[in-house]
């Protein structure tokens, strides 16, 4: 028993944290990134059609240039897998193809990568980079992502504001050994709430 210990006269805190700001504030307010305008398109045609409307920050010429650039970036940086199963596990059934770059090498042909499913162009006003692009691939959840998987989007058509880093080119994967199952980074391994038969309404209590 601690009865002999000296207890504070006052039984309550002098101050408390009263404000529940919601997830936005808890998610790393420390490094708030500059956002940039971006537009996503499933193909070159839809970009051109949008550019002709003239309502956005890019021209028809940008569409052409950036689509070509995105194709190149995709070929260079898309994740590469040692099997079709593994690729489809990460990007969904029917979203993978053999690596065209590997076709020309001896012993190639058994490397798989996600297909290019669209591209995103952004207006990089800072740093004088002008208009930039990123390829988009499918995710296993049915959404879309940049090749390194860091930025995910619900769909491959629309406009919005994204972090500038979205347009940072991912490391090159071309000519590198494809990923094995063990190397594929995974998500969602927590939260199955297996001790409850029905899954949990709340994890707390």
């Amino acid at each position: 028993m601690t009865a002999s210990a000296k207890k504070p006269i006052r039984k309550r805190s002098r101050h408390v944290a009263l404000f529940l700001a919601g997830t936005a504030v808890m998610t790393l307010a420390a490094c708030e990134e500059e956002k940039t305008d971006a537009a996503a398109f499933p193909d070159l045609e839809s970009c051109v059609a949008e550019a002709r409307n003239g309502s956005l920050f890019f021209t028809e010429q940008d569409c052409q240039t950036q689509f070509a650039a995105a194709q190149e970036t995709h070929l260079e940086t898309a994740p590469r897998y040692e099997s079709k199963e593994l690729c489809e596990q990460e990007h969904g059934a029917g979203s993978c193809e053999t690596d065209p770059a590997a076709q020309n090498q001896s012993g190639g042909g058994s490397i798989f990568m996600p297909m290019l499913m669209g591209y995103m162009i952004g207006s990089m006003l800072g740093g004088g980079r002008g208009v930039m692009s990123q390829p988009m691939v499918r995710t296993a959840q049915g959404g879309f992502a940049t090749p390194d998987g860091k930025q995910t989007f619900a769909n491959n058509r629309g406009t919005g504001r994204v972090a500038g880093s979205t347009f940072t080119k991912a490391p090159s994967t071309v000519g590198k050994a494809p990923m094995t199952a063990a190397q594929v980074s995974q998500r969602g391994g927590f939260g199955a709430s297996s001790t409850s038969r029905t899954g949990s309404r709340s994890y707390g209590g």
Partner: protein
Amino acid sequence: MKKIDLPERPGWRDRAQELGFTFADMGGEPYWEETSAYHFTLEEVENDIEDPCTALHEMVREAVVTALASDEWLQRMAVPEAHWDFVADSWKAAEPELYGRMDLAYDGTGAAKLLEYNADTPTSLYESASFQWLWLEEQQRLGVLSPGTDQFNAIHEALVARIAEIAEPGTDIHFAADKSNPEDYATVEALGWAAREAGMGAHFTDLAGIGLTKEGQFADDEDRVIGTLFKLYPWEDMLRDDFAQHLASSGTRFIEPAWKAVVSNKAILPLLWQMFPGHPNLLPAFFEADVAGAMRGEAPPSGIARAFEGAADMLRAGHVTKPIFSREGAGVVIHQSGREVERAPDDSYDHHARIVQALAPLPEFGGFYPVIGAWIVGETCVGMGIREDASRITHNLSRFKPHYIEG
């Protein structure tokens, strides 16, 4: 201990909204309810709640040593065998605990009785530490309560001090919860503010968004490696999830530490009773499998015969059975004088082993049954929050009631 009718603070619902306390009403029913409050004397708080709960936590720590040293106990607690070393190592490494909530039956007279110890993922933290505190301050300002009143609620300051004690300054701590559950989220945000005040970085990540890097570390939903993880997600589930195989090798430091798997487990109740039989703050408790026959009048197994005989009359007068894992009152069944008198509607944990615990009838105040939630931060009881229910099984839709100390 009394229940006192008091005027509500004008506009408190707007204030709650403003502060982000969005679940003050749940399912159309008031969850925060201040048309009355519980009044305690300082003596009741210190002698009947604070000191006994600090002592109970110390007993729990002794029970952890016993459980971790025994294959049989680990088995009975349903800790997956593959992780026994992981759980035991966290204790050997003296990984410090952060917080927990002991639920007690107490009526202002005899000894408070420990119903269970949610030592891993207790919620209602924001209501207890913050909104309840604001209620007292504002009721004093409005003249509803006298300036001499107080509240057993040093929770926030104790959390700040404890976090500063258990982590290096500037440590980045990730807080994981289910972002779609406002109650769970509020609890981790309350902890997040305490962490920031303690000089730490606090970052929220959705639990389901946690990933595994190629190096086998855990990463948040933005691919930042997680060094220290507070998870509002129970160990018994962590140890059974797909990522369980990576827990030990991830290098992540977990809060609560893994040894809480044997504390926040209702099997600790029979263990405590075995180690401290007759303790005034404990209720007799056994595994149902051990005493089911004896409850029907057969001879109890030799190992627990004496203990059972000593508690038999109490158990027959009234007892509760509950699964070793469950949340929010799920799976609780109350028996009195040989008949089942009440059963929780939620049976989603009923496939687990059950314990039998003597019934400590909750007191009734104006048609409601209050349960005291005594908050432990570190190894000390530092505050309390009261939930009451119109039913004798406190569940998720019970109401939170403020309390104050006077006299």
